[in-house]
């Protein structure tokens, strides 16, 4: 081996570069794990297909096919699944198997680790959404946004949704005591939110108390924002606010984003509990 030179401070590689490299590594590793790929992408697709077969008819008084309403909700739910649920479980397992501990012992900037996770979550969410679009389009005529304005709405709602759910997934990964407890800890809030956020049921038809509870959490706003980009304005007759409430959507998602970031920075654990 080469002789050691005395310590001279050298510039460290940039966090952005390392973050990009981590994102690429995460994706490479993910796509080589066939089981994970199949299950990650198939769950929302199966839900879309089964619910599409069960339900029929229009959302009352709007002329909008209920299955399209439902498809927008499943896209929102798919984003939360690939980011919040999968990410939270994966990080809890990385904490258990020593991945995080090893990384903590290197000069990896912590922000680069989170950046890598965000990049991989974003790429997977885009793929997931594209698959849902294709299947939703074939089965019940779901169409991409119809105007540049609607594309813009779709883009910012989607990116904000991915960012918020990623941050909350990272934060939630510190809650279960072990990696084995992680799937339950992440799936429980996900499942409940799907029921109260207008994914499985039309939001406007839910009892007032449930609507108010659902409106406290980001999934409701993500689903509503996506409906505003994908479905015609005639649907507004069925929306409780009688408007798309973009301002409020941005506000709630930003608030959750800040809360998620604060939680990540203050509560993230690189060690198993018993190792401290």
């Amino acid at each position, binding site marked *: *081996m*080469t*002789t*050691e030179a005395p*310590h001279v*401070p*050298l*510039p*460290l*590689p940039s966090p952005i*570069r*390392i973050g990009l*490299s*981590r994102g690429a*590594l995460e994706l*490479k*590793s993910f796509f*080589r*794990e066939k089981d994970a790929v199949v299950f990650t992408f198939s769950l929302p697709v199966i839900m879309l297909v089964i619910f599409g077969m069960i339900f029929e008819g229009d959302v009352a008084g709007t002329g909008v096919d209920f299955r399209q309403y439902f498809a927008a909700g499943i896209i929102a739910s798919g984003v939360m699944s690939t980011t919040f649920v999968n990410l939270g479980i994966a990080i809890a397992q*990385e904490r258990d*198997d*020593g*991945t995080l*501990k*090893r990384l*903590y*012992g*290197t*000069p*990896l*900037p912590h922000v680069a680790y989170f950046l890598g996770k965000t990049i991989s979550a974003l790429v997977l969410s885009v793929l997931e959404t594209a698959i849902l679009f294709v299947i939703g389009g074939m089965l019940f005529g779901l169409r991409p946004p119809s105007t540049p304005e609607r594309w813009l709405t779709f883009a910012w709602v989607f990116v904000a949704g991915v960012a918020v759910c990623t941050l909350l997934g990272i934060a939630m990964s510190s809650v279960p005591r072990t990696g084995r407890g992680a799937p339950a800890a992440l799936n429980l809030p996900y499942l409940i939110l799907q029921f109260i956020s207008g994914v499985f049921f039309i939001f406007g038809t839910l009892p007032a108390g449930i609507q108010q509870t659902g409106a406290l959490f980001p999934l409701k706003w993500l689903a509503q924002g996506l409906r505003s980009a994908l479905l015609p304005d005639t649907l507004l007759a069925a929306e409780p606010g009688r408007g798309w409430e973009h301002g409020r959507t941005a506000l709630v998602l930003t608030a959750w984003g800040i809360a998620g970031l604060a939680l990540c920075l203050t509560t993230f654990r690189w*060690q198993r509990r018993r*190792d*401290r």
Partner: protein
Amino acid sequence: MRDMNDMAVRVRGLRKRYGGIDAVGGVDLDIPRGEVFSLLGPNGAGKTTTVEILEGHRARTAGEVSVLGVDPGRPTRGWRARLGIVPQTSNEQPELTVREMVGHFAGYYPRPRGVDEVIDAVGLTEQAGSRLTRLSGGQRRRVDVALGIVGRPELLFLDEPTTGFDPDARRRFWTLIESLAGGGTTILLTTHYLDEAETLADRVGVIVAGRVVEIGTPDQLGGRAAATARVGWLGPEGRQYIETDNPTQVVAELSRKFDGEVPELTVTRPTLEDVYLSMIGAQR
């Protein structure tokens, strides 16, 4: 007296308390730059806790600690870039090849070693294109070592690095550590294998129940060099032994008595293992 700047590790009164019990109860330790220092001790003695405090993985309850001149309680990236850590256990299952993994970690450091050079040094050239999930336990361990040295560390922590190695792999690992030490890397090694400590370490420290009970060179530890020797041979009535402080004289006398060759002659002193076992036994 050595200058403090010559010390890679300096520890005074280190204490770590878990729920009212001192896991580490006042450890003092100096490791000069360039030394290979081995920490020995039974399971639960506080070895790993001590090492993980030095690595910046655990917080300490009390005491002064300086590692490469930095308090590991406040780790920085610049400091981390000068350390290499081979943790005790790792169970990651990334679907990545050895070369991808080592190459990726090299990107964290300002002045990494060549990826192929490192893979070759740990003897994984043939497996460089294999995924980690396909490697044997010993090969996985060598990946751990590769990740620990790829950043060209000034100080390398090795926590039970050869657990699960076959004897041949262990020998080759020792050669690697000797070459790193020859290049000036300071090494802190914890191990359960006393032959490993004896081969590699300039000095060993024995830690029992959270305290360092003795520090010395492997051949001096526990008064080993001055210990009574035991001369054995095959006499007319079977195997015989004499405990003596003058083994040379005893052998000379035996040689005269047998008129030349002494049958099945042995001269032994306590091994490092004998000394170590009596040391940890006395402390328990």
